[in-house]
Structures are given as structure tokens and as C-alpha cells.
């Protein structure tokens, strides 16, 4: 007898918004948008995606994707909060700076440089790195080190599948990611808040974990610039700053790579940065978190590995996670 054990995060069928309702909501939103923005022009295709000729990568609007059972039991954070309350210091340190200034960033054309211990290295167009016909949706909780959290429906592709394309060799024990840098387009990088460009990294087995994800969209649409367009990392069991945005370089390396926040303040930010309510950060208690978009007083207890322990705890067997924070 086949007993299909659902994934831990899988919602019961009854809790899932029906596609009809979901599409209906989108229809309503599109109509609202059309009435508000283009009522006179009779624009009925507000949701239609705009693709660049030749490449097939949508540059705005809806993305094709399939649903998955990666869900969170809580409601997703409203779109306005997900795209209006961001930490992307390249555009300024205020939470609304990214939404205000990130539109200056050019995200097309976009290429990613692959370096280090891999068979296939060099510069690749984003369209050649990510198969835009194989996108999936995953709803993950994002826990910021500043003790707040959101629930975000990402659209993207598993990181492991992307990395395997480059055939990393056995010397590739870590992978480093580097963010785009352009002082003209990123006004925040004109002051030395951090040592630009922004860098992050994962151990190879972490990168290959099923949860590690590269997002190119959210809420069914192309990633807004302030959320790290056109491609960003999402590692939901780690503090948000590990989920590096607007990636232009991926390096396969043999030693633990430099990461921006650890370099800035090693006592506060470690390489691993796993969400851990038991390790008090020198700035914030990490025991609980504010829930953004759920009313001003909403809080929840922070979970070890942000609730993803069953999937990732094995990566750290035998490690002291206070020491290796």
C-alpha cells in the first residue's frame, strides 16, 4: 500500500486558495490598475508580460510558473510591504530607499560570471543560467536579523540545479555570490556603509540543499528591482542578509569565502548566520520577531532555522551553532 506522507509544510487542500479565486483576485487587481492608470486607453492587458525580443525573458509582469507544496501556514505578507520595506543598502539605508531609488538599476541585459573550481566557467547571459520555462513558486518565511519577518511567495528555480550546470569540481567546497555594483545607478554605494560590492557565501552542501533557491520573481511577477532583480538568492533558514540580491558573479572556492557583514562586524555576523533564537545577537534579542504587515503589534516566537530544521538541521550535525553563528 502506498502511503503518501505529505511534506511538513504542505497545507491541507482545503487551505489552499483555489486557482479560480487567485486568478479572480488578479483579474480584480488588473481591472483596478487598468481603471486607475489607463482607463481611457482601454488597456485590458495590464498583467501581460513584456518580453525582450529574442531572449524570451519577461522583463516585467507575469511569469510562467508551477505551484509547489513549499508553503507557510501563515498568510503571505502584503505585496506592498514586501516591495516597500526593504534592506538593500546599495540604494540607501532607509527601509523605503530601495523602493524609491532601485528603478535606476539596469537589469537587462544581465549576465553572470562563473569563476573558480568548475568545468564550465565564464560569462553567461541570465537567460542561459535560468530556464524561464521551468520556474516554480515557493512560499518561504524570510527572517531578518533585525528581528522582523515576512512570508513571501517567490518564483524561481532551485539553486542546486543552477549550480550543477557549471559542473563544480571536488575542490568547490564553498560558493561565493557577488552583487552588482555601479555607483551611478546605486546611490547608496557612494558612501562606505559596507565594503562594496556586497558578498555572500554558502557551504557547497548548503547550496545543494533542496530549500536553497534562486528567485527571479515574487507574487507571480518579475522581481521588482528593490527585491534584488533580476536574480537573487533565497535561503530561508538563514537571516535575510544571506539571501544576496542582484547577483552578477558566482565563484566556486575551496575555502570559506569573505562575506560582507562578517567583514563589517565579525562579532555580530558569522558566516553561517542560521536563524537561531538561542543566540542573542549583540544588537537584537533573536527570541521573537515582529511580523511585518500583520498589524503593528503582531509578533511571533522565532523558530530554530526559521522553522526549516527538519530540512537543514542535518547539515550542521555535531557543530556548535553558537560558536559557528
Amino acid at each position: 500500500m502506498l502511503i503518501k506522507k505529505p511534506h511538513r509544510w504542505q497545507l491541507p487542500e482545503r487551505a489552499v486558495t483555489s486557482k479560480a479565486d487567485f486568478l479572480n483576485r488578479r483579474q480584480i487587481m488588473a481591472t483596478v490598475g487598468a481603471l486607475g492608470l489607463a482607463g481611457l486607453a482601454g488597456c485590458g492587458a495590464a498583467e501581460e508580460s513584456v518580453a525582450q525580443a529574442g531572449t524570451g525573458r519577461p522583463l516585467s509582469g507575469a511569469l510562467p510558473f508551477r505551484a509547489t507544496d513549499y508553503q507557510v501556514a501563515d498568510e503571505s505578507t502584503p505585496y506592498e510591504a514586501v516591495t516597500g520595506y526593504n534592506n538593500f543598502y546599495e540604494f540607501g539605508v532607509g527601509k523605503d530607499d530601495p523602493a524609491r531609488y532601485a528603478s535606476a538599476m539596469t537589469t537587462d541585459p544581465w549576465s553572470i560570471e562563473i569563476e573558480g573550481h568548475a568545468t564550465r566557467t565564464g560569462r553567461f547571459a541570465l537567460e542561459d543560467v535560468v530556464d524561464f520555462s521551468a520556474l516554480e513558486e515557493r512560499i518561504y518565511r524570510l527572517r531578518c536579523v533585525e528581528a522582523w519577518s515576512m512570508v513571501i511567495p517567490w518564483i524561481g528555480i532551485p539553486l542546486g540545479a543552477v549550480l550543477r550546470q557549471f559542473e563544480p569540481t571536488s575542490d568547490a567546497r564553498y560558493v561565493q555570490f557577488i552583487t552588482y555594483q555601479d555607483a551611478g545607478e546605486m546611490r547608496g554605494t557612494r558612501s562606505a556603509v559596507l565594503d562594496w560590492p556586497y558578498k555572500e557565501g554558502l557551504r557547497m552542501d548548503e547550496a545543494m540543499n533542496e530549500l536553497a533557491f534562486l528567485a527571479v520573481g515574487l507574487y507571480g511577477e518579475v522581481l521588482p528591482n528593490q527585491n534584488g532583480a533580476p536574480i537573487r538568492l533565497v535561503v530561508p533558514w538563514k537571516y535575510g542578509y544571506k539571501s544576496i540580491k542582484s547577483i552578477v558573479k558566482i565563484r566556486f572556492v575551496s575555502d570559506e569565502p569573505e562575506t560582507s557583514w562578517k567583514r563589517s562586524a565579525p562579532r555580530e555576523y558569522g558566516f553561517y548566520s542560521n536563524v537561531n533564537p538561542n543566540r542573542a545577537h549583540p544588537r537584537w534579542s533573536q527570541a521573537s520577531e515582529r511580523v511585518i504587515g500583520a498589524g503593528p503589534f503582531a509578533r511571533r516566537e522565532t523558530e530554530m532555522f526559521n522553522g526549516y530544521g527538519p530540512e537543514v538541521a542535518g547539515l550542521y550535525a555535531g557543530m556548535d551553532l553558537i560558536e559557528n553563528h
Partner: protein
Amino acid sequence: MAKNAVLRSFAKDWLKPLTFWALALPGLWLGWQWGLLLSGAPHDLGFNPIEKTHRFLGDTALRILLISLAVTPFRDLTRWLPIMKVRRRIGLAAFWYAAAHLVAYLGLDLYLAAGMSLTGMWAGLWEDVVKRIYITLGMTAFILLIPLALTSFNAMVRRLGARAWQNLHYSVYPLAVIACLHYGFMVKGNQLGPWIHGGILALLLAYRAGVWIRSRMKPQPVASTS
């Protein structure tokens, strides 16, 4: 001169109430925004209203404190003496915003994080003071503000005597430095905000150091023996 008459009447009838309302304005704005938020209306507190409240109250307290330290240099530069009549009320406003900053942190952060337990709130405060340098600094600055606020009334100035009062209130200088450090240790990375506020404070302190050095270099009048 007519201009002087206008200035005199402004100083006499308008300076104090205008200063009062200018100092109250940030608080009124914040209260109004919370009223909008709680009634479900559009507001300007953003997606993390508690965080915004902390930053707003802290910024306001520190900026008013810096303004209170700018009063004396302003008097020296403009020779407009009436400005001294509002110095204490500006300093007192810094105390009230700092107190509101502390109450917001206790009530909206620690009390809620402790599951609305007062004991948990005080335990959380102690943990923060011990473990988090920016909280240690912030609490120190606030505690140093208390005696200054308590002695900012005419009756207390008279009771202490001008000299003792002045000596006590010199503690505003180290206190302001600690408040700027509190800000600097609070932000992530190397941000401009604390450097700007700290730079303004450094100018205000340098001015006083200059005045002090000059007063020491002046030949002291020798008492005549004849």
C-alpha cells in the same frame, strides 16, 4: 529703531509659546499618525510602525538636545540675549522625547516580546542593558538626563544656587556624547547619520572648549592693594 521694537515684542510675547509649540509638534505628529493607524486610515508610519516610532523619538530627542546646546553659541554670535529664556525648555523637551523613546521601547518592544508580562519586560530590560552596548549607552544617557530635568524649574535653580546648578548641568556634555554613541552603536554598518549628529556635537563642544581656553588665556585682573 522699529526693528528692535518688533524683536523686543517678539521676545516678550511670542518666543516662549512659539518654542513650546515647535517642540511639541513632533510629538503631536506622532500621536496623530498612531491615531490614523489604529483607526485603520492611511498613515505615514510605514510597514514597521514600532521601529519607525523608536527611530523618530530617538532622532527627535537627540536633535532637540543638540539644539539646546546650540543656544549659547547662538546668543554669543547674535548677541540676542532673549534666546536664553527658552534654553531650559528646549533641554526639558529633549528629556521628554527621550522618556517617550524609553517608554516606547519598554512598552512596544519588551512588554510585547515578553508576552505582555511586566516582570518579563523588566527582565528583558536588564538583559538588554547588560548584553547590548547601545542599550547600555542609551540607558546611561537617559539616567544622566533625569537630574537635569528635575532641576530645570525656577524653584530648583534658586534652591541649588546658580553655581551648583551650572556645575550639575555641565553633565549635559558627556551625556550628549553618550547619546551620539548610542545612535552610532545602534545602526548597522558604517552609516552617515551618527557621524552627522556626532559632527554637529563636536562643533558645539569645540566652541565651548575655545571659549574656555580664551578665558584662561586672558590676563586675570589683579586686585588693587591701594
